[in-house]
């Protein structure tokens, strides 16, 4: 057995690029949350903006949230990966510039061109708007996604280049020599393993996504070039699912890097850890058919594969990471502050969010639950209480004035407010789903409205607490650039 010892490394401040990523994400996050609230208020019949506006907001909310989740995740990955390999700042910035260009195209498409075919741009909807939007508006939206995709492709190619330069190849970056051979304790650190996995799956996802986007753009103007709708759906879901899943696999790097600093215990890349990441590298690619369980025309083996892999993939990284975090914290005398609390909470949120997906990934359950609010209930839990919470933890960490500083009471209150209101908000989605409330409906039946009203109140509280987190980050953004110890040492570690 290999032994692992904690090795202290200096705590690096964030490069300006990382802060630009985080600032962009935080600002767009708040705006998109407000859009989400407006949707909920419309369903609650407290405001009336009309169905068209609702779907425009839904399109922006979906695309915007997925986009900033990726941007924020990439900033976490880049910040920590830089400490092991030589990444290019220029490519990092180029990705942000392309992202913003794509965002402008998408905003123009939705706000000026009134495109509202949802972020999933499912074929043939973008080209069959019944006069609600023009082909140009749809093309602008899909073009915006393409531009964003090109940026991320460049970023991942740079990560691949840097990893290969240092570790030789991806097999070594994933720790295969240690996984399949003798574990000499010299497997690459968790950050490198996670970045390698994300890079592989995202490059594949992006190439598939770019292909279907190009095909749909051709079809938009020359409809004679027909696309098989099932093929299109498969490709879109493959790309979209890999891309949004990858955000949490990037953000979790914050947990791997930051929590050990509090208790001076190492995050081990041992065989179990390596096995879980290698298994998920494959499974993330084959899990998407669990969204297609209702599509009887898909080949049966694909649906069964989605069902089984959906079950299996819930386990590895999540359980290994949760267990790893408990080992770091257990009897360590850790001193909790906002950063460590949020990071710990995020693992709970991730696990809690995976459970409804696990249930819904069962074919028999799916016949009833599919396309109900159960699904937004699932992904809002793992994204809001998992992914976004990891990013908030990272932001608090970067901005911590020094390692002995205590959190302000208002931040502590906001932490509990955030936790409980997100739970209230997502449980309202889940409960509505259980009551068979359809998702993506602008107008709700009278008996559904009470849940919508409860959810709206929780949404306001979520936004209020997120506003405080983000405000605190911006107030401390100057500190984030400096190198100094941020984590308070655990009692067990100092003793």
């Amino acid at each position, binding site marked *: 057995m290999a032994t692992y010892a904690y090795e202290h490394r200096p705590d690096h401040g964030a490069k300006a690029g990382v802060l630009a990523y985080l600032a962009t994400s935080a600002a767009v996050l708040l705006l998109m949350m407000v859009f989400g609230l407006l949707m909920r208020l419309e369903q609650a019949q407290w405001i009336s903006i009309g169905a068209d506006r609702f779907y425009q907001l839904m399109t922006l909310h979906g695309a915007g949230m997925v986009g900033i989740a990726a941007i924020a995740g990439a900033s976490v990955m880049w910040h920590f990966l830089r400490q092991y390999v030589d990444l290019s700042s220029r490519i990092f910035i180029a990705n942000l510039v392309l992202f913003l260009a794509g965002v402008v195209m998408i905003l123009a498409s939705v706000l000026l061109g009134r495109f509202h075919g949802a972020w999933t741009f499912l074929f043939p909807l973008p080209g069959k708007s019944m006069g609600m939007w023009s082909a140009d508006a749809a093309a602008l939206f899909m073009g915006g996604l393409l531009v964003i995709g090109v940026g991320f492709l460049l970023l991942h190619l740079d990560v691949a*280049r840097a990893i290969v*330069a240092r570790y030789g*190849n991806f097999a070594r970056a994933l720790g295969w020599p240690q996984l399949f051979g003798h574990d000499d304790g010299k497997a690459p650190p968790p950050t490198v393993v996670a970045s390698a996995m994300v890079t592989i799956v995202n490059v594949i996802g992006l190439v598939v996504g770019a292909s279907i986007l190009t*095909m749909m753009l*051709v079809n938009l103007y020359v409809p*004679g070039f027909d696309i098989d709708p099932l093929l299109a759906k498969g490709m879109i879901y493959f790309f979209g699912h890999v891309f949004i899943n990858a955000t949490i696999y990037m953000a979790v790097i914050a947990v791997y890097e930051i929590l050990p600093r509090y208790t001076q215990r190492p995050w081990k890349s041992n065989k179990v850890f390596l096995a879980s990441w290698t298994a998920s590298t494959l499974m993330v690619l084959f899990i998407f058919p669990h969204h297609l369980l209702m599509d009887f025309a898909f080949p049966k083996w694909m649906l069964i594969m989605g069902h089984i892999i959906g079950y299996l993939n819930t386990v590895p990284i999540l359980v290994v990471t949760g267990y790893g975090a408990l080992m770091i914290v257990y009897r360590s005398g850790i001193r909790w502050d906002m950063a460590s609390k949020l990071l710990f909470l995020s693992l709970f949120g991730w696990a809690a969010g995976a459970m409804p997906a696990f249930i819904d990934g069962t074919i028999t359950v799916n016949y009833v639950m599919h396309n109900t609010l159960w699904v937004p209930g699932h992904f809002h839990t793992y994204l809001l209480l998992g992914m976004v919470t990891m990013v908030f933890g990272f932001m608090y960490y970067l901005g911590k004035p020094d390692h002995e500083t205590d959190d302000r009471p208002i931040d502590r209150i906001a932490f509990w407010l955030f936790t409980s209101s997100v739970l209230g908000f997502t449980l309202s989605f889940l409960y509505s789903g259980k009551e068979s409330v359809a998702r993506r409906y602008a107008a709700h039946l009278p008996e559904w409205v009470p849940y919508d009203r409860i959810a709206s109140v929780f949404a306001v509280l979520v936004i209020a607490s997120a506003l405080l987190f983000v405000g605190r980050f911006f107030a401390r953004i100057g500190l984030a650039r400096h190198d100094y110890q941020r984590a308070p040492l655990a009692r067990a570690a100092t003793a």
Partner: protein
Amino acid sequence: MINAATRAGIGLRILVALYLLLATPAARTWLEATMSGHMLVQIPLLAALGFIACRLLPEAWQETLLAAAGGPVPHVVVALFASTWWMLPRALDEALTHLPAEAAKFVSLPLLVGLPLALAWRRLGSIGRGFLWTNFISMLAVLGWLYIAAPVRVCNSYLVDQQESAGWLMVKLAVLLFAGWLASLFVGGHAECGASDITGAKAAGTLGRASPQNST
């Protein structure tokens, strides 16, 4: 023991022989009989001959040629346009019916596609190469779909079923190339000294430029 110059000389002679072989009426009739043979064998082979020939030229010549046209990017652009031209059904028809067009194909593919690509390739670095590969793969797949889905017969010289089988071949080729490219990331290369050792962090330095990804 033969020196590099004579080896290059022999290599060039072999390439010229292959080129002439491709140009013989028999080989042309055979390869051009099907759309797949024309688009996916003859055309890529012509470009590949130019690529390899360029590699055999003395280093100094390559540098001069590269500099003469203003660096790697213009070269890639030229290669892109020239190769796109020969992907058009019209161009294929022309080549089959007009001898000058056929001659233009035999000249332009090695000289305007293979050669500039080979000149630019080394300079592109692994990001540029990866970018070209991934884009090429996705465009090949899309082109394959275009040929499969085309509502009309696009060539005068080939029937619709030819069109479809060429399209499917392109899609399959794209998948194979992608799998191969990804697999190449998993093999070869060597770790930097102490790379697996966490304390060696940040030793990577600027070595990132000379990535051992040359095979891609």
